[in-house]
């Protein structure tokens, strides 16, 4: 017995010392094919995801394309300080937050509600038709959607005419009115995505055990009770995960769409951080370093938001990304 246990003891003592080199060796021997397979993917991530992160250093420089990163002058926090003093900063923050929160308040729940409503349809056929139709707009490109919006809200457009006759709004090109910008953005956002975003929830709904409903019915629960006490609680994990992801993208508000819809007339309500990054990077008053600093600020805020939301939801109920 004792002789048998001795080598065991020796191994325990030896393991940490020998381990790393040996373990790497053994791991490579066993898995080198796997690593080889991953190499192209790794290269992709390093070049197109991590190299740009490293490129953020130019926000601390006065970057000149001709000199490259090594040759450009280091200027410390200069660009961040001038961004915090930028006269447009309040406007950018206000617009970004307004649009982001409006999406969160209106677009985000709309897909959940739609999934619940589709789930409760009695006719299979109708449920399929509603799904097919509501997915269509997702396949229409943002350029085309904005083209359609431009027509519908123009002076003679269908939406302008409709709102004129119902609410009595003034006949005008609504895209040139700053105050209409956010509503136009949100309504078209819902139109585009409500169906598509409901898929995740529908797929979570199909996973609910039907016996739960039967048991509830036996106990005398009506439809409403069933939705409140079974369906929605079963959806919560999915909702939480989608919510955290949404928060992470929140400050990236659909700048591609905004760029296609806004004009200098509506910058007051429409200009967000990312559109400003684009303009200062490529269009007006071009300054790569300044633009990168603004983008850097945006990325950090996004990351912090995901992190905080994740912490909060984790503490609240244990649903979290990590």
């Amino acid at each position, binding site marked *: 017995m004792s002789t048998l246990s001795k080598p065991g003891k020796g191994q325990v003592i030896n393991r940490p010392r020998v381990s790393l080199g040996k373990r790497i060796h053994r791991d490579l021997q066993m898995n080198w*094919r*796997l*690593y080889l*397979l*991953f190499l*192209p*993917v*790794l290269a*992709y*991530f390093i070049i*197109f*995801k991590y*190299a*740009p992160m490293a*490129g*953020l250093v*130019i926000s601390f420089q006065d970057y000149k394309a001709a000199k490259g990163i090594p040759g450009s002058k280091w200027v410390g926090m200069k660009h961040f300080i001038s961004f915090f003093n930028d006269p447009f900063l309040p406007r950018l923050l206000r617009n970004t937050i307004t649009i982001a929160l409006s999406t969160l308040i209106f677009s985000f729940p709309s897909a959940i509600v739609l999934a619940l*409503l589709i789930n*409760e*349809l009695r*006719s299979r056929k109708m449920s399929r038709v*509603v799904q097919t*139709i*509501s*997915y*269509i*707009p997702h*396949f*229409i*490109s*943002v*350029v085309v959607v*904005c*083209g*359609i919006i*431009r*027509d*519908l809200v123009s002076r*003679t*457009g269908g939406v302008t*005419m*409709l709102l004129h006759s119902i609410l009595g709004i003034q006949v005008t090109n609504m895209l040139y009115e700053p105050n209409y910008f956010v509503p136009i953005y949100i309504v078209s956002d819902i139109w585009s995505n*409500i169906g598509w975003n409901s898929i995740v929830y529908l*797929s*979570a709904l199909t996973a609910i055990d039907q016996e739960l409903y039967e048991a509830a019915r036996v106990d005398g629960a*009506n*439809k409403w009770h069933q939705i409140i006490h079974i369906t929605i609680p079963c959806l919560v994990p999915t909702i939480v995960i*989608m919510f955290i*992801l949404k928060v992470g993208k929140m400050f990236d508000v659909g700048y591609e769409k905004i*760029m296609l819809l806004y004009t200098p007339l509506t910058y007051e309500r429409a200009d967000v951080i*990312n559109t400003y*990054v684009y303009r200062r*990077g490529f269009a007006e008053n071009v300054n790569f370093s300044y633009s*990168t600093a603004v*983008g*850097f600020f945006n*990325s950090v805020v996004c990351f912090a938001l*995901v992190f905080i939301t994740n912490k909060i939801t984790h503490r609240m109920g244990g649903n979290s*990304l*990590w």
Partner: protein
Amino acid sequence: MTAISKHKEKQAIKIPLGERVFYMVDDALMILLCVLILIPLIHVVAGSFSDGASYMSHSGLLLWPLNPTLAAYRSVINNQNIWTGYRNTLFVVIVGTSLDMLFSLVAAYVLSRKKYMLKNFFNLLVVFSMYFSGGMIPFFLVVKGVGLYKSIWALILPSLVNVFNLVIVRTAMTGVPDSLEESAQLDGAGHLTILFRIITPLVLPSVAVVALYYAVSHWNSWFNAMLFIKDRKYYPLQLILREILILSDTDEGFMMSETIQFATIVVATIPILCVYPFIQRYFVKGIMVGAVKG
């Protein structure tokens, strides 16, 4: 006795009033939603078949063409730019989606394997890039730096892997029983055989959905093309559409009548709309989002 039990049965089947109202409201809401979604599309299609001058003098929504004519379609078909755009977009969609899928499948396979040292590191590396990015300018500089500026490959290589899509496939692959892989290994199958012959067929719904995601995003993307493509010969369809639909409003040089704009929309959107119903049955099955966990 029998009368009573029959009576009871009837009661059990009868749907309470509240519930009936609920179902009716639900049906009505869904019909309303479908109408609201379809109206803009009907307007576009009706407009595309309308006479240009009649449309100009008309205001409000169209549900039927005004003085039906094919004139708008004729000028779209004669617009060489649109066909060049089509060709470039098809190239990007076909080559891009194939490469995207190849990379995503391989990545998902490696990330879902067990027992290798760098597994957690690889997963962290991939997932972190979903939450933090270098932003627009550094991305632009990197793409330019690797020599893709003004090349159509700038629309393919920089966006090879979408992490969200990758995670969907990875989750599906994690669900495949290990025993299948082990027995294949005993038969001498290599990683590629296991991946493409055994695992991929088993996670087909997810693969189909993700392939559709990639194809749609290539078809619809315009922003990268605007940044990187300078030669009109390589303009994808969406950049041409941007000129016709967006810039024509503000820039005299691109002036284009509305009916032609509508016909362009129809011509540019029909192909992608024809594809998705074939994959629709996979939608709900293919996307599991328990999923996104890192």
